[in-house]
């Protein structure tokens, strides 16, 4: 009887996982992210809004 190549490789992998404790990482699905609030230094060059700014580009947008 021909050896089922896929089954054979799976069984080898199962032995390796069992012996060395390799685990599949868990996967979390997230659409919305949590705001990460962190302190930052105030910039040296401030505009009216108190921000360091890139210039508004001359192009539309």
């Amino acid at each position, binding site marked *: 009887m021909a050896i089922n190549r896929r089954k054979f490789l799976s069984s080898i992998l199962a032995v390796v996982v069992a012996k060395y404790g390799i685990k599949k990482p868990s996967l979390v699905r997230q659409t919305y992210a949590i705001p990460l609030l962190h302190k930052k230094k105030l910039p040296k060059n401030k505009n009216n809004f108190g921000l360091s700014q*890139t210039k508004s580009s001359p192009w539309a*947008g």
Partner: protein
Amino acid sequence: MTTLVKCELCPRYCVLENGQKGECRIRVNIDGKLYAVTYGYPCSIHIDPVEKKPLYHFLPGTPILSLATVGCNLHCKNCQNWEISQAEPYQYETEFIAPEKITALAIQYKSHSIAYTYTEPLAYYEYTYECCKISAGKGLKNVLVTAGYINEEPYKRLLPFVHSANIDLKGFSEEFYRTVCDGSLKPVLKTLELTKNAGVELEVTNLVIPTLNDKDEDLQQLSAWIAKNLGKDTPLHFSQFYPRYKMTHLFPTPLETLLKARQIAQNEGLQFVYIGNIIHRESSNTYCPFCKILLIERYGYNILQNNISNGKCPKCNKEIYGIWQ
């Protein structure tokens, strides 16, 4: 054990290992949770004329508070704002500005509307959402200037707080989106339809890039799709390309190409077709699609005359698409 996070905000569906950031650079897996690292930290904030967005059918001649954080989920080789859209969050030193403060700034500077623009407001989604929700509650109007690369569910959640949008339709082939923008066309078309169907005042911009998306058939197909799926009253802006970022080897779009694009779109029945990023007076004016009289005369971002009365043409009394007051 490692926890991978799959970000389902946009069609990229980035799967992130601990400490890894998404393609947008601003959504990060920290210990198995997805964080928005630029929330509350705009890198740019200005008062612009609303015509700069470009919006030609939304409160003409008014100032609009415009802001952005760094980051974008597309990587267009021609990006005009690549210094911030393709930046890492740590490259810009910023100060925390809470969404309530954004609303207060708009009111303080006598801006009746707020634009989430410059980079990609749908990448800094949570900040956009909170700002929109709070400012709408205070009677302000919200504007998205976006590439529209987002999944349906989060976009539908945001739309009730949005009054107007200018969405980039960057080209009309999957190949263009794949090779130039590192994205895909289909989700953008879906976003355009969702926006129009939600009753948001929608304008579309197409940046015409020489040799890449300026063929007659490209322009014709794009215009025909808009006319059929969004309506002939949808304003369309053909913008002039300037050599920027990874496309400094191309020349700026010739005026003739933009005028040709405008003619093609008008032939497809579109009623309001403009050209932008270039001064050309006749093609930046708004004319009544019914009786053809001049409604709004513009010069650059300035309004020279606005004859629209209560959202209608003063001569034939037909309603003109837009938000006028």
